[in-house]
């Protein structure tokens, strides 16, 4: 296992209740977990089991109905949206199933985004390096619609790591890709994760991807049914 230099992320008694058309609906119920710094965790489960909801809560995109979440030593559930946004900017990277590159920006500009948001002057330089690292140095000026799915996801990976986040959240990063491309993207994800010594939280259907994580967490109907090392 990775060296235990502290806990990057922890959750206790986290539940999420939303208003559905037929009254209240409990999506998550009493979830607890802890991810050591530099560790990797895969959240697996059937579609609709609450994986994305949990990921969103852990990353501070939303607030839990009950329970507490601590990210890099800061309690997320007591912070307001603006404070969480500041925290995300510094500490968190994202990879999405549907890439979410801004269609209006070219590859380089998309990768620059996190640095731009932080007001850094060396954004272009770092973005160029990050793109080169994912093998797209020559495609800097291409726009998302000029890139294949796999290439778009590689740009997204460059964007996720460019500002050196402490923890990376990935929601089905290979879900929209064919198996071969998915494998390439998966390799790249884990390689970057190692290089940056980033803590990784990964939601996936892909069994092989999940097994590459140090730990797996099974969700069923919003509850943890099995946590496997």
């Amino acid at each position, binding site marked *: 296992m990775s060296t235990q230099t502290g806990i990057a992320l922890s959750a206790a008694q986290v539940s999420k209740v939303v208003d559905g058309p037929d009254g209240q609906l409990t999506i998550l119920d009493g979830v607890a977990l802890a991810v050591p710094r530099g560790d990797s965790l895969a959240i697996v489960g059937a579609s609709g089991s609450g994986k*994305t909801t949990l*990921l*969103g809560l852990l*990353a501070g*995109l*939303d607030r839990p109905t009950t329970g507490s979440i601590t990210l890099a030593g800061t309690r997320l559930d007591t912070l307001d*949206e*603006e404070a969480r*946004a*500041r*925290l*995300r*900017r*510094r500490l*968190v990277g*994202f990879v*999405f199933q549907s890439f*979410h590159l*801004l*269609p*209006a*920006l*070219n590859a380089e*500009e998309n990768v620059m*985004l*996190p640095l*731009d*948001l*932080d*007001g850094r002057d060396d*954004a272009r330089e770092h973005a160029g390096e990050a793109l080169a690292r994912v093998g797209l140095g020559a495609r800097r000026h291409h*726009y998302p*619609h000029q890139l294949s799915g796999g290439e778009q996801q590689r740009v997204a990976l460059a964007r996720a790591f460019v500002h050196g986040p402490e923890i990376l959240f990935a*929601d089905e990063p290979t879900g929209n890709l064919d198996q071969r491309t998915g494998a390439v993207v998966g390799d790249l994800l884990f390689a970057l994760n190692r290089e940056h010594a980033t803590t990784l939280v990964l939601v996936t259907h892909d069994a092989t991807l999940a097994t590459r994580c140090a730990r797996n967490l099974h969700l069923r109907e919003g509850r943890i049914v099995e946590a496997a090392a």
Partner: protein
Amino acid sequence: MKTFAFAARSLRREFRHAELATLAAALVLAVAALAAVATLASRVERAIVASAAELIGGDLGIGASKALPPAFVEEARRRGLATNRLADFPSVVFAGDKSRLCDVRASDAAFPLRGAFTVLDAHGIEHPAHAPPVGAIDADHAVLVALEVAIGAHVQLGGREVVLGGEIGKSPDSGNLFRLAPRVLMNLADAEASGLLGPGSRAHYRLLVAGDEGSVAAFAAWAKPKLPDGAEITTVEDAQQNLRNAFERGESFLRLAALLAALLSGVAVALAAQRFARRKVEEVALLRCLGASRGEIVSALVLELALLALPACLVGLTLGLALQQIVLGLASGLLPGATPRLPWGPPLAAFAVGLAVLFGFALPPLLRLRDVEPMRVFRHDLGARVRRFDVLYLLPVAVGASLVLIGAGNLRLAATLAIGFAGVGLATSVLGLVLLKIVRSVAGRLRGALRFGLANLARRRALTLLQAGALALSLTALALLGVVGPSLLERWRANLPPDTPNWFLINLQPEQRAPMQQRLHALGATNLNLLPLAVGKLVAINGRAPDAAGFTDRRTRSAINGEVRVSWSDTLPAANKLLEGRWFSTRTTRPELSVDRMWADMFHLKPGDILTLRVGEREIEATITSIRGVDWDSFRANFFLMLDPASGATLPHSFVASFHLQGDASQSLAALSRDYPNISLIDLNAILDRVRDIIGRVTRAVSWVLGFSLLAGVLVLVAALAVTADDRRFEAALLRTLGAHGRQLSIAVLSEFAVLGLLAGAIAVVGAGALGSVLATSVFKLAGYSPPFAALTGLVAAAALIVALAGWIGTLRIARTSPMAVLRRG
């Protein structure tokens, strides 16, 4: 965050690729329409003012009962203004044993400052002229007839012998209908030397100035506090009533058209912004996810908007100015006289209004983006949730309302439009909701494409209502511009039919009435109106003598200080309308009075009030029993005050007649005035021509402006259609992947738009018709207007058809592209 760099980058890319271009186009057109319309309106307006200036003979006049101190002339000259000094007084002209009382005008050589003055020489040839030289006069034809002299004859005036140099042809300042005597024009130096202006003379002095607008205004400001007692400033606005009506009406038309263009552009911008904001949701969610704060999101959006707005407004401005120049070039003769300089106010205002329209109408949907939740990157339906009421929604309403208020420059027009458009919007929401309920239940029983199309409407309820509202408003505006406007103009022109009285005859004695009537009939006079006239003084209102000092209105003061004219008639005269009370009963024993609305307002009179009038030696106490509305545009002999016939007949009186005579009537009328030397004939042809001329010019200018505003309306239609175009394209692509035929897609889209178009069209017909009727009576004061519902229905049906076709053509494009491409992008 590097907000500026980010905003600039977004703008660059988004502009080349998608929606912002629509927003910019809407803005360019908004500013172009406004700049063109407002500039054109202002230039036409100024040209009309200049033409009205001819009627007072200058851009500004100062009237006084004594000659003005020389300081006034010096000051005007110092400011670079041209000046003309005049004195008007009655005097008798003699030739042998004949004499004639004349209205004499003594003027320095500068006459006329504005307008054309022509004289006919001995050969009857007309040429432009100035005031006659010392020792000569020009006179009306009536003087030559009365004195039985020809041009070149010597006559006596003010105890001196002068040469009759010419016969007065056209003359500016011919606006006074009640000039009692024919005109004579002489040199001011002659009048001063002859003692005609000495103590005891009843001369009315005037100083006229002309020059550029700024200097005239500055001179007026300088002169106002220094005016001697009894002196008054006359401006162009005080010019003759008929002309003023024509002018105000024309101005209202132009303002209406410009206003509609501005509002339409606002709607276009709002719709484009709505669409843009919907597109931006994904991006904002991602930025929020990556840690951008709300403040950064908002400032980036505002910045992007500003970066777009400034160049778009500049392009619009250039385009608008070019367009109005083209219109001026194409519609030659649109402006009377020289084209006024390009004014800077209206284009700058258009620029400012463009920015106000953009931020007023586009900011609300964009600012709402700050509420986009970061979780939306995972769940696309999150942002679509209906939000509670937001104060931001008041912004476009406020901007729209201030546009109406400022643009209308007239509270009536503003209120009518605001209430009208609010009514159309409300009706659309209410009827739209009802219709959607019906559609929802009907759609379930239909099949295939038709069901899909109608179900779409019901599913996108908020968007459907927005779209229907925008369509209804723009169709209403289109109908106002395309049908109601022109028909109102037509009604206005019809106000002066060909048989409008062009001659007045005054001072006819009671015993001459019957023979004159026969004589006029023999001459072929039509539209003859003969009424008694008694001239007197207003002595008391409800027993108290009115005090001129208590009224600021010039007309009210002159009614108190000067003469009042009274007439009477068994029946309500034509061009009069009973507004309050009843016309005189034949059995009345006490004197009764009917008062014109304007006069009643001036003195705050109501039925039951008692006026005391003195005519000659007689005083009469009459009770007001009715209030009349008089159509002063009719050019008939009309009166503010009318007595019951029994009381009127006891007063000393003469008769006045108004009638129409076709063609050149000078020979026969000359004979008439020889046979009845006591009567005076007043030629109204000049002023009629002037009014007709102004109506003609204004209607031509308005037609152009209306046409241009129509373009703005079309843009709104396009923008309204584009609101759901993205959705529809995506759905169509989806349906095609599921195997739908092009025909089925067309049916779905056509059914959707037919329902929308029908709803909006029906509301627009009713709305435009109702607005037209209210505008006709309350703003344009045009009696007897009824909106052309057939033409309205035709126009709106055509527009609805175009709406449906445009929607259909939009989907044809999808049929040609691969559905995969669309799906991948969505």
